[in-house]
Structure formats: structure tokens, C-alpha cells
């Protein structure tokens, strides 16, 4: 039993809903009690979908439990098939139905339909949403490509040459409730098409069962989000010999690496290598003198595996930040996140507990947080600027404008989204510096809210000397005055460091000079 106040991921059947809702001509009969329909609002409210998710909930009640819930399942399957006429039927159960063991998938298969039926067994008490999405996508592929898999077709990545046409690829992994998937797909297709590469199928987003059946018309697969598509890509490789890409095209370096990887796999010469570096404004914006102040900014990163790893690389290599924390809630990707953290000399935080993330964030005293919507809230409480880089989705993460994370435009979006909160941080510092000027109206509102400067109360204290810590260190007036001149976003850190320094040196009173001594000591 695990006490959970808030969770980054939903249950696995919500993952299955993401696949079903992303696709066309599919219906999902979910053996579930009333209340589980809440998941519909994730799609209709957060994603602002104009269609209901294609899901029928059997809605069993306590009084049904003594009777025949299996009959109820069959009735719902029959009605759903008649009403929605899906080309493929997904059948599964939510947490409660798993306990009553009606085997809805097996029941559906015995009902004599001629459409393919995918029996989803998603263990609700051990797995979570992304796993459920991945497993659903994989089971769907297996079901729809079963016949072709047994005919031992082997697909060479060079087949396009023999066929005398442009190379074709599949883009696998984008789904509803995935972070900026809608726009990433457009960006990646654009990049590929500029290189003379056609997109065969994008799936699950926008695909139909017929599209799944023609996945093998492509030469290779692009694995766009490992959380959702890696298992499927691996299966396609095993059964059809289809190669797939490993590079996630987020950031300039990885987008270029991605383009190279695709070309290499297809044995397609890359003719515009030099040009690629100028496709995005990020490299120049990052190089321009205005960005000097970004150097060494302390950044704390937490999100799903794909986006957290990508963010760490961009932060360090493309923006010149210092990564002071890296973590993920995706246990499936813990290994990769740990490897990246090791390269950056930080310890990876693998957890589902947002309070643990908040503690780590506070300890790292970053100047910028890149996280989920939950980290945005934690950062707000701590008065640290934040940009959101990952699911779980919030209505704000589905912007009206084109706003990918991947490719050239994605890099532009990332530059703006990450640097603007920092610029506001700088503005904050200016407000702080000039607050004694008469032009400033008393009570100038900070965009970070009133909790922005957590040392403020300490500074405001009237007493000239105050024992502020358990070791009995005293801040003198000059020390206190000097501390107010430190930018608010590092003030807490400076205060702690100075006290640490004073204790270690046995200095009982902190004056302005002690502050400078400590500064020199720690630099």
C-alpha cells in the first residue's frame, strides 16, 4: 500500500484510452464501474477534444456482483459494436473489474465477430499509464500484423532503392495526452520531407487499423517517444527486421544526430549537413552576447524519461546551464536517466512522490526549474522560475499556437520557453535593486507571487541582532544589509553558505566582510 496525495501517471487503462482515442475506427469496451468515466474529461477538457473518447464503460454496480457481470459485459460489447461499428475492438478492464475476473477479452472473442479483437490485460495494481499505453499499442500491432509476421517478411532499410522510390518511414509513439505530440509530428514530418523522406504512417495519433496493417510498407521506424513506442519498434524489428531510430530529436544537437541516424539507416547521402546547423535560431540566440548571463545558471530537471534526458542535454550543451538535479517518474526509463545523470555528475532522482521532488529541488537551490506542472507549483512556492517540459498534461500544455518541442522549431520554442522565465528573474532582481527609488510604487507585485523571497522575513526583522539558527550565529546590521543586495533568487543559498562558513571557521557574528569571505571561500 502506498500513500499517494497526487500521482504523475494514471492507471494503465488510461494509457489504453490514450491509444484508442488517438486512433480512428477503434472502440474500447472497458469493464469498469461508474466513476471511471472521469477519464473522458482528460480528453475532452484538457485536450479540448470535440469527440468523446471511443470508450464504452460496462458500468457494473454492487448489485450486479452477485449476479452475472459476464452477461453485462457481453451486452455492452454487443451494443458498442452495433452502434460504433469499429474496425478493431479493444476489450479490457479497469482496476475493480480485474478483481472479479470476468475475462472480458475472452468473452468478446467468443461472440463471433469477424473484426480483430485485442484482449488487453493491464495489471492495474502494479503498472501505470505509460506502460498501459505502450502495451496497448504493442498488442494492437501484434494482433493486426499477426498474419504478416508469420509469413517471415524481412524488410531491408535499403528496399526503397530496389523499388525505385523515395524512402518511407513510420513515426511511432505520438498520442493524445502526450507532451506537444500534435506539433512534434508536424515538425518531424517536415524535416523528413525536406530530406526527401516520405512518412508512411504516423501512429497511434491519427492512424486507423488499416494504417497499422500497412506499417510494413515503410523501410524503418522512427521511435519518437520511447515510453509509448519502444516495445512496438522492438517487435517490428524482431518480426520484420525493421530498423528503428534511437535518437530523440529534441534540441539542435540531437535533431542533427537524428537526421544523420535516419540517413545512415536508409543509406541515403546527407547533402545539406552544414545547412542543418542554421535551421533553428537557438544556436545563434544562445551565442549572442545577450545570453551571456545564462552561463552556469543552475537548473533542476524533472519529468518523463524522454523529456528529462533531452532537457538535461540541451541545458548543458546548448544553453550553457549547469544541471544541478535530474530525475524522472518513468521507472521504465530509470536506467537511461541514471546514465545521463552520471554524465552530468548529479544523482538521478527516480520517484513518484512529488514531495520528494520538491525537497530535492529546494536542496539543489536552482535558478530555473524544468519540470511538470507539479514542479511548476513547487517552484512557485519556492520562488523559482519554471518552465514545463513534460506530462502529465494540463490545459496549458495544449497551446493554440504551433508549439513543438522537437526539431528546429522545437528548439526555438524551447529557447523562448526556458529563457523568458529567467529574464523575468532578472527583472525581479532589478525590481529588488531599484525598489528604494521613488518611481517605484510601494508593493510592486512580483510575477512570482508573494512567496518569491523566502528570506524576506529574516531581512525585515527589526532587531539589530538576532540568533537565526540553532548554532547561535548572529547577523550584524552590516551583514544583514549586505545580504539584501544579493539577488533574491540566490539570497537563500548565500545566507546558508555564509552561515555554514561562519560555523566552520568559528565566527560568532556575520558582518558584511564575513559575507565576502564566504563568497571567496565557496567560489
Amino acid at each position: 500500500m502506498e500513500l499517494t496525495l497526487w500521482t504523475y501517471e494514471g492507471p494503465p487503462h488510461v494509457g489504453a484510452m490514450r491509444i484508442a482515442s488517438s486512433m480512428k475506427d477503434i472502440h474500447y469496451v472497458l469493464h469498469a464501474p461508474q466513476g471511471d468515466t472521469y477519464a473522458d474529461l482528460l480528453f475532452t477538457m484538457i485536450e479540448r477534444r470535440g469527440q468523446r473518447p471511443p470508450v464504452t464503460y460496462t458500468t457494473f454496480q454492487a448489485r450486479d456482483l452477485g449476479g452475472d457481470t459476464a452477461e453485462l459485459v457481453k451486452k455492452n460489447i454487443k451494443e458498442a459494436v452495433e452502434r460504433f461499428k469499429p474496425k478493431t475492438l479493444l476489450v479490457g478492464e479497469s482496476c475493480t473489474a480485474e478483481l472479479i475476473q470476468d475475462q472480458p477479452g475472452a468473452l468478446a472473442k467468443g461472440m463471433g465477430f469477424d473484426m480483430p479483437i485485442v484482449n488487453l490485460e493491464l495489471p492495474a495494481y502494479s503498472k501505470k499509464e505509460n506502460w498501459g499505453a505502450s502495451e496497448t499499442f504493442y498488442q494492437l500491432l501484434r494482433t493486426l500484423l499477426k498474419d504478416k509476421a508469420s509469413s517471415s517478411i524481412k524488410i531491408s532499410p535499403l528496399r526503397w532503392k530496389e523499388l525505385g522510390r523515395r524512402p518511407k518511414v513510420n513515426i511511432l509513439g505520438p498520442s493524445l495526452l502526450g507532451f506537444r505530440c500534435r506539433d512534434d509530428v508536424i515538425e518531424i514530418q517536415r524535416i523528413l520531407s525536406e530530406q526527401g523522406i516520405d512518412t508512411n504512417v504516423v501512429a497511434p495519433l491519427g492512424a486507423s487499423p488499416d494504417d497499422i496493417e500497412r506499417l510494413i510498407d515503410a523501410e524503418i521506424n522512427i521511435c519518437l517517444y520511447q515510453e509509448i513506442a519502444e516495445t512496438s519498434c522492438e517487435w517490428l524489428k524482431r518480426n520484420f527486421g525493421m530498423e528503428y531510430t534511437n535518437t530523440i530529436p529534441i534540441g539542435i544537437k540531437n535533431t542533427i544526430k537524428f537526421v544523420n541516424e535516419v540517413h545512415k539507416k536508409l543509406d541515403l547521402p546527407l547533402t545539406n549537413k552544414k545547412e542543418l546547423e542554421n535551421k533553428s535560431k537557438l544556436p545563434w540566440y544562445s551565442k549572442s552576447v545577450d545570453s551571456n548571463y545564462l552561463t552556469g545558471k543552475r537548473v533542476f530537471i524533472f519529468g518523463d524519461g524522454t523529456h528529462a534526458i533531452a532537457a538535461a542535454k540541451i541545458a548543458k550543451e546548448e544553453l550553457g546551464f549547469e544541471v544541478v538535479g535530474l530525475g524522472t517518474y518513468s521507472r521504465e526509463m530509470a536506467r537511461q536517466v541514471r546514465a545521463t545523470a552520471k554524465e552530468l555528475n548529479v544523482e538521478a532522482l527516480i520517484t513518484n512522490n512529488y514531495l520528494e521532488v520538491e525537497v530535492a529541488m529546494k536542496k539543489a537551490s536552482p535558478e530555473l526549474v524544468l519540470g511538470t506542472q507539479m514542479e511548476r507549483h513547487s517552484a512557485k512556492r519556492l520562488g523559482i522560475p519554471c518552465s514545463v517540459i513534460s506530462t502529465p498534461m494540463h490545459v496549458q500544455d495544449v497551446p493554440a499556437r504551433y508549439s513543438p518541442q522537437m526539431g528546429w522549431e522545437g528548439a526555438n520554442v524551447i529557447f523562448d520557453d526556458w529563457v523568458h522565465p529567467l529574464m523575468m528573474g532578472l527583472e525581479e532582481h532589478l525590481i529588488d535593486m531599484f525598489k528604494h527609488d521613488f518611481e517605484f510604487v510601494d508593493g510592486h507585485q512580483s510575477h512570482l507571487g508573494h512567496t518569491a523571497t523566502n528570506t524576506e522575513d529574516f531581512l525585515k526583522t527589526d532587531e539589530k541582532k538576532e540568533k537565526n539558527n540553532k548554532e547561535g550565529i548572529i547577523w550584524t546590521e552590516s551583514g544583514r544589509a549586505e545580504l539584501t543586495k544579493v539577488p533574491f533568487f540566490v539570497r537563500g543559498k548565500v545566507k546558508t553558505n555564509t552561515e555554514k562558513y561562519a560555523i566552520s571557521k568559528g565566527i560568532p557574528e556575520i558582518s558584511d566582510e564575513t559575507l565576502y569571505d564566504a563568497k571567496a571561500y565557496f567560489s
Partner: protein
Amino acid sequence: MSKVEFDKETGPREVFCGLTSIVWLHRRMPDAFFLVVGSRTCAHLIQSAAGVMIFAEPRFGTAILEEKDLAGLADAHEELDRVVNDLIARRPEIKTLFLVGSCPSEVIKLDLATVAEKLNKRFLGQVRFVNYSGSGIETTFTQGEDGALKALIPLMESSNEEKLLLVGTLANNVEDRFKKIFRNLGISNIESFPPRQSTALPKIGKNTKVLLTQPYLSDTVRDLKHRGCEIISAPFPLGIEGSTKWFLAAAKAFKISELKVHEIISPLINRAKLALESHKEILKGKRLFLLPESQLEISLARFLHNECEMDLIEVGTPYLNKDLMKEEVNLLPDNTKIVEGQHVEKQLDRVRESNPDLVVCGMGLANPLEAEGISTKWSIEMVFSPIHGIDQAADLAGLFSKPLRRNQILTTKTLVTH
């Protein structure tokens, strides 16, 4: 009774379960914690319905059952014990802890009553434990509050003092207004259930006169009757008409003259009628379809027809207690169609066929209907907004007129959706 048409329907539903009521109950009683014993689905449901991220640390959480908890019930009880200990160590300010049953905990027959009893002994004088079920296999949405209140009744001491007890969660400002009006009427001893502090439970007995503020409290009412309370029969205080009759019923129970009531509330009524005008202009003659969810549907239909002159196509309700709703049903126009239960697909067919001007529905259905060109009002807002009383009648009407007004401004009936 007016000639109202009753119908029952079964099938797939699109409603919240009783756990959702934690979202307003925990705000009402800030010294209480609601611990759902359930699955990741339960946790995800509550955070999705509540938009929990605004809280630093919410006063509700889920003890998520894992595979090993399902293997042996003894272990599950022990695990729950551990979770509760951790929670209380972390949150010493908690005075009452609600152990809330869910679909999975009910199916595996986790005995929360016994767990609560044991914990009560251990934490005697520090924290009180009560249990109830908010599971979807037994409860719909607002019925969760019914369960929570029923669970508190055994903790209420007896007293034969004469008092008016307002039962059902109200917004604090509305509660204050009501109390002021009752005092002006000459009723001085007024208490609310649930109270603002979980430990400040009202005492009850044979001179307690219960006035319901919410229509979804069947079980609570039954248990209050068993404790000797008198239940005042009245419509619910939504809109001018409902609120007036509600005040009158209370006054009658306290032998206060009708004249006195009118004297006190007439200025309020006049003011409210004035405020209602602009909304009525928009709502008048518009056709309304209410899908089932909160059990407030019948009272809302009565208000929107009688005071806002809307036409009622169908009034859905997840559950109908004919006894409690008698006064309300009597006020409905003849031939109103009330449908208890739901077959969401068939009901949506009827929505489309009847081409309504406004549909009251859950959040899962609102945008899809809007995309079809049908204006909607999401029902969950009714339980989060202060809508009770004469002073709030215009605000209540405003919840329904706003989508229509917006539609007029934006003019196009159908939009391309993405």
C-alpha cells in the same frame, strides 16, 4: 402531485462516483483528512476532478492497493495501519480521519469499520476515525457526501435542546446569510451539519428540527430520524421560490407566522427578482435537457422552468428518492419527464433528436456536445458554486445564461475541432 412522467433507464453511465464529493467536503472541514483506500484510478479521479495541483499538500489522499495487498487481507489491514501511522505522524493537525472505501476495497471486502475501530482505540483523544464508502459500485457523485455525513451521526451527542439543524454542505457565505435570516425570523439556535470543524459536531435529539439544504442525503436523513430528529418537509433552497418555501417550512416548524417570514424576506425577493430579469430574458423559452449527475437536477429544473421560464425536455437524475423529492416534484410543470438512471448513448440520441438550446452535463460530455453545436453547462460547477438562497438566485441563473450569452456573441453554431 403534478402529473410527472417517471422513467427508469439502465446501461453505461457517464457520471462521477461518490469519491468526488471529497473535493468539497475537505474544504468544508479543514481539520479533517480523507484517506481513500483504493487504486491508482481513485487517486487519478480525485486529482483530475479537483485540479489538485493548486495545493501544497492536499487534505486528501489515496492508500493505493498494490498486488501484495490483494494476496492477503490480513496484510492489507496491517499495511493500512502503517499508512495511517505515517500520515498522522506527518500531519499532526488532523482531527478526524475519514477512511473512504472504494470499488476495489469493497470488492476485496476490506473491513474499514474494524480498522477504524482499532485505530480509534489507539489514537483515543487525538484523532477520530470514521469510515464510509464512496465507491462507484454503490454511490454516484453527491451520494459520497451522504455517506460521509451518515458516518458522523454516531459521533453526535444527544441533546433535547430545540434547534434548527441545516443539513448538507453549504458555501460558508451562504451559510452565514441563512443563519442571519433565521435569526431575524426569531430562530436563534441554528447549527450546520457538516460543521466547519469536524470536531464541533452538533448535538441532536427529539427537538432537533432538520432542514435539508441538499437533495442527496437519503441515508443521512434516515439515521437522523432514528435519532429522533424531526425532518422538515420542504423544497430545496434553490431559486426564489424554493428558498421562500424552504424558509416558510422552517418557520412553520418553529411556529413563526407566515407574515413574519414575508416581512423579512420580501425585500430580498424584490431585489432578487430584479437581478434575475436579465438572465430570464436570455433563458425564457429556451429548451433544456438535464443529464443525470448531482441529484440537484430536479430542483434546478423547477427553478429554471418556474422562475426563468425555460422549457424542460428531460430531467435526468442518477437516483430518485420520491419521498425526499415530493415537494420538488409537486412544483414541476405537468408532463415533465424525469428519467432515473442512465444509458448514456440512448440519452445522447434523445439529446440530438430534441435539439435543445442548453444541456446540463458532465465534463466528459460538454465539449463533444459543444462541437456538435449544442450549448452546455457542466454540472460539477453546481456543487462548487454558492448557489443556494434568495440572494444567489441570479447567480444560479447566470450559470445557465452565460453559455447561451456566449453563444450569441460568438454566433457560429459549429466550429472545427482539433
